[in-house]
């Protein structure tokens, strides 16, 4: 019983991170039919900058805020200079390779600046573990899935009630029609990439106290976030959040009962199997082919 609860709670924590990353992919894909392949590195950037901010004596909240904002700026720049120049090309080779290239560069830079080792971010959220049915978890871990769900609800509310949110939906539905209605499509796409990057960097800051921060932490988290987006359906925000939380819990059980290597094997195999059985993901909708 205790172990089960432990796995579920820790799984929800890491799953919340996957969900936040996947939400970022969802937002970018909806707006641009393109994503930032360095999205995992956005997360790393947020976490690493927060740790470095604390190092130079900034108060924790300020360091975290700076990390998140820097992540957002990174997303904006990447959209403008790496994605947009290739937006009109028929294949996706262009923006994929440029964003991957930037990811490789950022990771290399971070390794040089931060060192090749891992460090945790000190946070009041991990000072004392709380006990739930005998399972020990940090408050920080309990917050993460809640944040993921709140962000998803916030996104839905924004899309329903604000002008920019409705513009995002319009652009996702039909770029040309949206442009004809006077929507500045480029600005909406830039906003979407910025927003996604903010969420990614925030996920990095949130997870930093729980797992170790390192220059290479982004790659695997980003990849799993995308896997979750594929499983949940990249077109569905609630879908990717549900899939993210479930994926995290599943990972903890496999890790606990078998091994960490098995965790990766099972996790990614599940992604491929879901893709075989549900091409649009579990909750995704088929994008209408406009002829």
């Amino acid at each position, binding site marked *: 019983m205790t172990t089960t609860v432990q796995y579920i709670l820790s799984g929800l924590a890491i799953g919340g991170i996957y969900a936040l990353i996947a939400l970022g992919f969802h937002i970018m894909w909806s707006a641009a039919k393109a994503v930032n392949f360095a999205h995992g590195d956005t997360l790393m950037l947020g976490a690493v900058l927060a740790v470095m901010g604390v190092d130079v004596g900034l108060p924790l909240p300020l360091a975290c805020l700076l990390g998140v904002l820097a992540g957002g700026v990174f997303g904006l720049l990447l959209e403008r200079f790496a994605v947009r120049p290739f937006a009109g090309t028929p294949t996706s*080779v262009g923006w994929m390779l440029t964003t991957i290239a*930037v990811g490789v560069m950022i990771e290399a830079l971070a390794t040089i600046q931060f060192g090749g080792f891992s460090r945790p971010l000190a946070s009041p959220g991990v000072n004392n573990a709380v006990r739930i049915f005998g399972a020990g978890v940090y408050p920080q871990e309990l917050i993460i899935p809640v944040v993921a769900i709140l962000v998803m609800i916030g996104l839905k509310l924004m899309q329903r009630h604000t002008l920019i949110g409705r513009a995002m939906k319009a652009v996702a539905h039909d770029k040309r029609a949206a442009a004809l209605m006077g929507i500045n499509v480029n600005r909406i796409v830039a906003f979407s990439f910025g927003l996604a990057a903010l969420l990614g960097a925030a996920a990095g800051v949130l997870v930093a106290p729980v797992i170790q921060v390192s220059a290479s932490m982004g790659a*695997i988290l980003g990849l799993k976030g995308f*896997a979750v987006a594929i499983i949940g359906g990249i077109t569905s925000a609630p879908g990717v959040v549900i899939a993210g939380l479930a994926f995290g819990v599943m990972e903890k059980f496999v890790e606990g009962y078998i091994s960490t290597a098995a965790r*990766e094997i099972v996790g990614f195999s599940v992604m*491929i199997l879901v893709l075989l059985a549900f091409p649009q993901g579990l909750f995704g909708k088929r994008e209408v082919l406009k002829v």
Partner: protein
Amino acid sequence: MKHLNTLGFLIFAVILVAVPMQAGNEYELRLFMLFLIYGIIAVGLNVLVGLTGLVSLGQAGLFALGSYTGAILATRLNFDIVACSIVAAVVSGMFGALLAYPSVRVRGVYLAVVTIAFGIIVENVAIEWQSLTGGTTGLTSIPRPNIFGFKLAGFAFYGVLAGTLFVFTILIHHLRLSRYGRAMLAVSQSETASRALGINPTGVRTLAFVVASITAGVAGTFYAFLNSYISPDIFTFSDSVRFLLMVILGGAGTTFGAVVGAYILTYLPEYLQQFAIWQRFAYGALLLLVMFILPRGILGTLGELLSRTRPAPKAPDASEGISAETSLHHEARELPAELVAHDLTVRFGGLTALSQASLHVRGGEVHALIGPNGAGKSTFINTISGFYRPNAGRFELDGIELTGRSSRQIARIGLARTFQNTELFGDLSVLDNVMVGYDQRLSYGLSGALLQTPRMRREERECRKTAIGLLDFVGLLPQANDPAKFLPFGLQRRLEIARALAAKPRLLLLDEPAAGLTTQEIDDLEIMIRRIANLGISVLLIEHHVELIMALADTVTVLDYGQVIASDTPAVVQNDPRVIEAYFGTSHSNVGDNEVVA
């Protein structure tokens, strides 16, 4: 260009023979052999990246899979290098198909993610399955390579590697020049148009990835023999990026680009070592630089410069082709080309775009489908051509049920179409566009393409001649070698018609062919459609130009709010009060003929 390739292969062969003689020591030769192995991966990956425009970030995983397969067979079962590489090719090819099929049918981007994930799966299986793979310590003491028990000494092993790379480069060059290469390029440019021409985009993309997987697997086996030691941590994500960079840097889609890229990136690390920690940064920066400054890669850019200095290749002459009248001629006893649609209903959510629409195109007639904007005309032909599934109703061509079939199958049954917003393969030449349209009439298979068998050559000649004749038919022969995207709009429309005709359809759907054309161009179009109909091809025409319809159509069907409100000869339809009401909102019996304007 053809001579240039022959020259290229000659130079390549000379280099491959000369290098081992020049090699000063064991290390130099070994490094060159490593280049050959990378070259094998890169030429295969070039098919995926250069032709289908897809990206794999997991070639290192397939490379590892091939390495482990070869190493296990060699150490446990004493297989020779030939058997090892064949099994490795089969194993990686199968995994390639398994990975590609689910990913590329949804979104091409997924392939990149699925392949990285596969790399991680392979790594972890290698760690976990200790009894087979030796776990984290890996497999040591892989025996020296042998063929049928004869040990391969230094140069002999070199010969195997060089020979394999050379043969793979030729085979892939052949693949690129065949229907498969054309189809891959076409799919990368427009999936919609490919489907409408009877090409299977998922199949074509999967094939490209399987080719890339097989070469990676074979290269992996060779690597295991060269290194005589492998472990899970030597196959990393950075390697996958490096393999990609080889293709892009050398020139994606060119014959030798991948080899050149592999050469540079095998020797570059030797120089980059002095930068120590900046090495990985340098890879990223190099990739970024290439994408912005040299997007066509080294050989792609050189080729472009070369073609600029030389006079443009002469457009083919009409006498080289088979006239459209001959190539499109249907035997009298063939089927009449009759399309019958019964009560088609299509709903999008709450909106009923088509409501029990029925239509009958008689064999050989020109049938016009008209109606105000939003009447459901486009929905109708998108349904007939298999892009939308009807909620109810059925349709058939010459008694062959088409309901529920995919656009690809419908195209192969004899229905061809053009698009309202032209869907050309922009980067392909005008001639190649038409040759893609001919694809479903070709019968040679993959082995024919790879070996350029006489049958393949004969069919390709036939395809080219037909395409030339069709270009002459639509008056585009002078532009035959231009990229389709540079054609002015009016000519693009004509190219779409030629491309659709290349499939030798029984029924041709034209979706607003006159939209955006000048009066002169519309007159030409009228003559062209008449000639097509005279060849026995039924034409279903969606149009707004009333004059064109009145001049051409044998029958006019009018749609309004998704329902057929009239279907008769032009003269009758023109005076039908319901038609007049649909266009003007009120019904007055005194509205004259000429006022029915769409």
